[in-house]
């Protein structure tokens, strides 16, 4: 049923209960916009609990069970002692995280933290090189562009502007030497100007993202809960 007056969905039945719960939860959070209140705090803590519970459950069911428990039990019953040993090593290392809670065992947690951080640092070398090196190469744009390759963004003017902007912004972030020279100060000033344009882009994109979620929530309340509107 649709219409111009609110006629909320029936709260009886699984779907009805779900929508009503969702609507009340949304209104509880939105109540914070008027002032901080108990209902909002209650909803906030519920969200925290739900999030934590969900995260723990999915970690158990999607990682610990398939990648550790199942190989351990199957290895034990199949007498694959190499697999069993590996799983026990994983268990020992995993439990070392909890050394954090006692002064005498905190160094154990640092070991496993070091393992994770060291691996992350090693992977970061490959990741950064593969990610940034092609961009560095692509930054050297040619002012000459053959006629058949000219586009709105790949032409002589755009390429020159691109290189100039990039060098000016680079000079703005050049903190290794004092910016005394007039040329360096001028390029730094130009870089700051172009940076402002990009900050405007950041700001408007942030608005766009947040606004999308807000719209979705308002539309949920109007079209799914209150069932207002021609398409509601």
């Amino acid at each position, binding site marked *: 049923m649709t219409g111009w007056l609110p006629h909320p969905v029936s709260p009886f039945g699984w779907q009805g209960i779900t929508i009503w719960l969702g609507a009340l939860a949304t209104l509880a959070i939105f109540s914070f916009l008027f002032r901080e209140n108990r209902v909002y705090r209650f909803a906030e803590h519920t969200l925290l609990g739900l999030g934590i519970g969900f995260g723990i459950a999915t970690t158990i069911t999607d990682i610990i069970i398939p990648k550790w428990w199942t190989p351990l039990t199957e290895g034990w019953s199949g007498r694959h002692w190499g697999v069993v040993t590996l799983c026990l090593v994983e268990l020992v290392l995993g439990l070392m995280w909890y050394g954090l809670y006692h002064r005498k065992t905190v160094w154990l947690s640092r070991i496993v933290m070091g393992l994770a951080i060291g691996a992350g640092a090693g992977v970061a070398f490959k*990741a950064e090189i593969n*990610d940034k090196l092609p961009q560095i190469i692509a930054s050297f744009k040619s002012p000459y562009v053959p006629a058949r390759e000219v586009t709105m*963004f790949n032409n002589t003017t755009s390429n020159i502007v691109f290189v100039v902007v990039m060098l000016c912004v680079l000079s703005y972030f050049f903190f290794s030497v004092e910016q005394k020279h007039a040329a360096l100060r001028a390029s730094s000033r130009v870089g700051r100007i172009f940076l402002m344009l990009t900050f405007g882009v*950041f700001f408007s994109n*942030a608005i766009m993202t947040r606004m999308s979620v807000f*719209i979705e929530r308002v539309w949920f309340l109007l079209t799914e809960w209150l069932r207002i509107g021609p398409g509601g």
Partner: protein
Amino acid sequence: MRWYERLQRIDNRVLYVILAVAVAVPVFARLRLPIPPTTETLGAYDAVEAVPPGRLVMVQSTWDAGTIGECEGQCRAVVEHLMRRGQPFVIWTSNPASPPFYNRIIEETARRHGRIYGRDWVDFGYKVPGGAMAFGVQAMARDFPGYMKSDVRGTPVSRLPALARVRNANDFDLIITIGYNPIGEFIQFVQAVYGTKVVFGIAAINSTTTYSYIDSKQIVGMLVGARGGAEYEVLVDRAGRGVQIIMAQSFGHLLIVALVVMANIAALAQRRAERRRSG
């Protein structure tokens, strides 16, 4: 209180109500403005169009409740495009909350196009935790069947018709990621190593820094927030959530622009009045 002071002191709660009313307008008035596709959205569309018949696409979907406004339209349009073309694809996620959201879309689209699970698409569900993406993506790119092992229903990869000849990333012609953040690991460990094309579908807030990937040809297209979803929906001729959201967003953005202009006019008038009084 003078008019310029009143204009600068509107209560926040009034602003929130005006915002809610502004974005609710399209609920009551069905508005349709032309939505021309941008270069980055066309790149994504053309990338899917260029995938040869029968070649595999990988879709990685990490969006959930927090990004439903921006990513649902993108996901719906991409799945529609793939299923309409009969392009087989695999889908997986690094966000355990994501599967219910994308499965709802896939099942509805598959019903409409008569697509069959296992032949036209395969769901691997939550496979790689977000913190271990670097490890998971590399392992999957090196040996896809060995890493994935079985789909979300427990069927081994070897028994899935769509994946009969898949060994590694070379057997995928295109990777599409849809979520809040761009999954840089696909560029770092798949595109750079195997040359597989990558398309991003991301939230607008993360798109500012991602345009440079298009320039360096590390990605071939990008869907930016709700706008990207709306444009893609128009390209596949299936206007849906993306178009609805972007129409409502028009009013929201106009409101912000109007408020900023109004506040600055009032501030300018105040500064002039103060200068006149002092000088």
